């Protein structure tokens, strides 16, 4: 008997459910990475004002602005796909999960666009 291994079976990744699942996992990993970075930044506070200022100046570079826009996108996707999963688990969302996915993605996209505009135009709340 022969056992085929499937880490990535392209056949089944043309469906919405699979993509939602993969992107949810990847965005989750992205958030873990961000959290580590966040802890590192906060940690610099314990080493005095000078150290914190140095870190925040570094983080104010344009590269990090772009990364922040990406982070905001990841958060929006993960949050709204999370809402979709809650619907699937508790409110019969399985019966309309594809429509639900596109609805949630649309909301996430609009909020991402607004947030990105605010981030890039240096407006703070």
């Amino acid at each position, binding site marked *: *008997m022969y056992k085929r*291994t499937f880490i990535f079976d392209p056949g*089944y990744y043309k469906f*919405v*459910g699979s993509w939602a699942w993969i992107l949810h996992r990847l965005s989750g990993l992205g958030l873990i990475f961000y959290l580590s970075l966040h802890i590192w930044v906060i940690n610099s506070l314990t080493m005095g004002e000078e150290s914190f200022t140095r870190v925040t100046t570094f983080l104010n570079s344009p590269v990090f602005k772009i990364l922040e826009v990406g982070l905001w996108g990841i958060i929006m996707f993960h949050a709204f796909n999370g809402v979709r999963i809650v619907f*699937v*688990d*508790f409110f019969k969302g*399985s*019966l309309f999960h594809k429509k639900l996915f596109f609805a949630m993605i649309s909301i996430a996209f609009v909020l991402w666009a607004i947030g990105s505009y605010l981030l890039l135009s240096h407006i703070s709340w």
Partner: protein
Amino acid sequence: MAKVKLNVKVLRYNPDTDKKPYWKTYELETEDDVTILDVLNEIHWNIDGTLAYRRSCRSAICGSCAMKVNGRNVLACETGLHQFNSHKLKIEPLPGFKIIKDLVVDLDEFFAKLERILPYLILKKPTPDKEFLQSPQDFDKIQEAAMCILCGSCTSSCPSLWANEDYLGPAALLKAYRFIFDSRDDGTDERLDIINDRNGIWRCHTIFNCMEACPKDIKITEYLSRLKVKATENSI
């Protein structure tokens, strides 16, 4: 009806001679209104008699001929050529299961998992003298789940199963749903103990491949979600 030329790629594997499965291409001409099973029969009867595959009822009720055609698990007997845009077919055994030969997969583990969830009516109350009545409303809860023909399409399409062979899989869990939500059954606690496990219901990550694969269009993920709610309620 018209004749069409087909290009059929089949994943072949002979345990006696091959180390690994390989693709073999067949060129043939058939009518355009045939099914995938007809195409396989044509190959088996007239071109290459060594091709192995399971078939039995050819009425989409026995579940023997489940296989993966052009990227999706289907029953070969009910899938017509017209459902595909091209005349190129790519036929392979169900993914996730061990291949015995060509398109024939090993279903022993699949049925062992089914047995684990106690797939029969468990009665603790006295058996009624006459018919065991059930209201139409109660029957509606399990009607669709009871239509499962155990072809294995859902379980073999599940990425959770590809990653972890011990996962019970959608088919067994659907069967658990069918009995747990049966108003006549008294085995809910035993079954919930079995599925409320690290290799049970919680390995379902609502990826929905099972619903894409199911030839009977059963809303498997929806029933698994209800099972999750039931398992949670029961453990509180």
